C-alpha cells in the first residue's frame, strides 16, 4: 500500500519537476508551431500597420505598441506558406518577441495557448517536419497528442539571418537531395575511393553519370571485383577522365563557343556580369571574355574569375602564349608582347582574377551568367548544397548557369536547357 502511494507521489514530483520549458503555441498553415516563452514579451491583436515602402515582402509594416515602434513580420509570407483568408477575423494575431535588445512583432494564423513541457522531451528536428527550413527549428516536441515544432527565433531573426527569403526550403524538405550511399558494395567502394583520391563526391548531382560510367567500367575491367576497384589516384582519374566537360583546361573551340553563344539572350541593360568559379589557369575565362565582348559590343562587361589553386591562377592575369596555341577566332583580341601573344588591355580589364575559395563569402554583386563547369562535384555534400543556393542567390532572374555537362542540378526550381554538350539552367523569373 505504502509503496503505491510512494510511487504516485514520486510520479507527481517528477511531473512537477519536469516542466522546465514553456512555450507559446500557434498555428501556421494548419500545422502546430511554438516559440520559447522566454522570447515572448506578450501577445496582442492588431490591425492597420503602417506600411513601409520598399521593404521586404514579409515585412508588413511598423506598429505603435504603447509608444514603442516595432516592426511587424508576417511569418507566413516569410516561409512561403499559404495565407488563410478568414472572413471573420478583423485583426491579425501578433506575438511580440523580445530579442537581443529589440522588440519584433510576428503575425501567425492563430495563437493557441501556453504549453509546459520538459526540455528533455524536445527532440532534434528532422527534415521531413514542416515547410520551414531545418536550421530555423530548435526541436520538435509531442504534447497531448500534438506535435509542436519549436521555432528558433534567434536564428530566424538574428543578425546573420537577413537573407532568410533566399534560403530555398525545398532543398531539405521537398526534394530528396541525398548523399548517395548505394546498396551495391562495388559502387560504394567507387564512391568512397573517388572521394579519397580525387575529392570527387558522388551525390544526386552526378550520380547518373557515375552509374553509367561504372557500367562501362565493368565492361572495360571485367567482372572481378578486385579489378573494378580504384586503387590509386591514377585509377580514379582514369575513371573520371570522361567526366570533364568539353574543352576543360583549354580555350573553347569555335564550335563549343558558338553553342554557348546561342544560349546567351540579348541583354539591353548595358552591363553584363559573369562569374567563373574554379577558373584554373584562365583559359575558360578568356574564352568567356572574348565571347561576351563580341556578343555585347556596347555593354560594359565584368567577369569575376576565381580559383583556390594559387599556382594555377597566379599566371592568369598576364597569360602569355605562343600564337599557334590560341584559337583563330581570338586573333582580334591578341597583341604581341616580346614575341608572345597576350590578350589586349580591353579583355584584361574585363576580367578580375582572384585567389579565392568559393566556399568562403563571395562578396561581389549579382551576376547575369555563371560558368561553373565541373566545380560542384569536387565540393563536399553540404558545400554543394550551399553553392547551389548561392548560385541561385547570385544570379539575376532569368540568369544563366552553366555546370559540367555530366552534372545535373538535383532541384527542380530551375529551368533546364540541355543542349548537346552543355548542361545549362536558367533561373526562373
Amino acid at each position, binding site marked *: 500500500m505504502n509503496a503505491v502511494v510512494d510511487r504516485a507521489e514520486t510520479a507527481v514530483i517528477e511531473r512537477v519537476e519536469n516542466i522546465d520549458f514553456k512555450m507559446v503555441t500557434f498555428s501556421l498553415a494548419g500545422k502546430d508551431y511554438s516559440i520559447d516563452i522566454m522570447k515572448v514579451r506578450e501577445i496582442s491583436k492588431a490591425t492597420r500597420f503602417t506600411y513601409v515602402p520598399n521593404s521586404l515582402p514579409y515585412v508588413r509594416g511598423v506598429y505603435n505598441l504603447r509608444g514603442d515602434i516595432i516592426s511587424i513580420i508576417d511569418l507566413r509570407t516569410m516561409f512561403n506558406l499559404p495565407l488563410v483568408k478568414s472572413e471573420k477575423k478583423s485583426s491579425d494575431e501578433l506575438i511580440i518577441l523580445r530579442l537581443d535588445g529589440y522588440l519584433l512583432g510576428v503575425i501567425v494564423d492563430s495563437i493557441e495557448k501556453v504549453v509546459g513541457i520538459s526540455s528533455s522531451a524536445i527532440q532534434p528536428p528532422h527534415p521531413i517536419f514542416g515547410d520551414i527550413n531545418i536550421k530555423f527549428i530548435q526541436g520538435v516536441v509531442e504534447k497531448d497528442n500534438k506535435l509542436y515544432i519549436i521555432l528558433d527565433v534567434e536564428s530566424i531573426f538574428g543578425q546573420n539571418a537577413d537573407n532568410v527569403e533566399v534560403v530555398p526550403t525545398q532543398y531539405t524538405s521537398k526534394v530528396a537531395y541525398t548523399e548517395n550511399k548505394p546498396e551495391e558494395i562495388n559502387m560504394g567502394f567507387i564512391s568512397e575511393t573517388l572521394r579519397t583520391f580525387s575529392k570527387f563526391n558522388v551525390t544526386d548531382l552526378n550520380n547518373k553519370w557515375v552509374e553509367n560510367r561504372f557500367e562501362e567500367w565493368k565492361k572495360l575491367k571485367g567482372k572481378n571485383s578486385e579489378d573494378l576497384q580504384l586503387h590509386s589516384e591514377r585509377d580514379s582519374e582514369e575513371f573520371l577522365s570522361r567526366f570533364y566537360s568539353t574543352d576543360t583546361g583549354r580555350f573553347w573551340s569555335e564550335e563549343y563557343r558558338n553553342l554557348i553563344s546561342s544560349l546567351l539572350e540579348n541583354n539591353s541593360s548595358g552591363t553584363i556580369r559573369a562569374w567563373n568559379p574554379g577558373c584554373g589557369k584562365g583559359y575558360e575565362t578568356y574564352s568567356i571574355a572574348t565571347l561576351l565582348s563580341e556578343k555585347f559590343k556596347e555593354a560594359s562587361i565584368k567577369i569575376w574569375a576565381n580559383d583556390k589553386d594559387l599556382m594555377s591562377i597566379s599566371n592568369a592575369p598576364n597569360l602569355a602564349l605562343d600564337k599557334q596555341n590560341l584559337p583563330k577566332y581570338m586573333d582580334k583580341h591578341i597583341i604581341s608582347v616580346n614575341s608572345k601573344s597576350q590578350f589586349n588591355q580591353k579583355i584584361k580589364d574585363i576580367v*578580375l582574377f582572384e585567389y*579565392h575559395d568559393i566556399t*568562403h563569402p563571395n562578396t561581389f554583386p549579382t551576376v547575369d551568367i555563371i560558368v561553373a563547369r565541373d566545380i560542384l562535384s569536387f565540393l563536399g555534400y553540404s558545400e554543394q548544397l550551399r553553392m547551389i543556393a548561392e548560385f541561385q542567390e547570385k544570379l539575376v532572374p532569368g540568369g544563366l548557369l552553366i555546370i559540367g555537362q555530366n552534372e545535373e542540378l538535383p532541384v527542380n526550381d530551375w529551368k533546364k536547357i540541355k543542349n548537346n554538350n552543355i548542361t545549362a539552367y536558367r533561373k526562373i523569373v
Partner: protein
Amino acid sequence: MRVEYINPFVEAAFDILKEVLGNDIQRGELYLKSTSQAVQGVAAFVGLAGNVEGRVLFDMSMETALAIASEMNGETLTELDDLGKATITELANMITAQAVTKLHDLGFTFDLTPPAIFTGENMEITDNEVEALIVPVIVKQGKIEINVAVRERT
C-alpha cells in the same frame, strides 16, 4: 583576393625583413582563411583605403616581437615598452608601404592608415565576410604571420 596583389605583399615582406633582420628567412605555404582567427599575442595593424578596402595584420608571439625589436634596436629588450611597440609598428609600416608602392607602380592606388598595435593574450580577430591571405614567414626570431585581407570596392 585579386591575384595581382599577392606578389607585392610577399616580396615586400621578404625584402624588408631581410634588410632589418638578416638573411635567414623562410616562407611557409600561402593559404586562404575566412573565419575568425586567433592572434598570437602581438598584432600590428595597417588599414588600406582607396580603390580597395582592407587591412594588413602582422601577427606574432610576444617572444618573437621582443626578439625582433631587440635586433632592430641593437639592444636587448625585456618587455615590450614604448620603444618596442614603436619598432614593431614601424616594421609593419615599412612592409605595407613598400607593398603599396609596388602596387602603385602596377597601377593600383591605395592609401594607408597609420599603423596600430594590439597586445594581449587570447585575442581573436573577426572580419565579417572578408577572406584573408595568410603569408607565414619564418625568421630566426620566430614566426610572423602576415594576414592580408583586401577587397575591391564594388
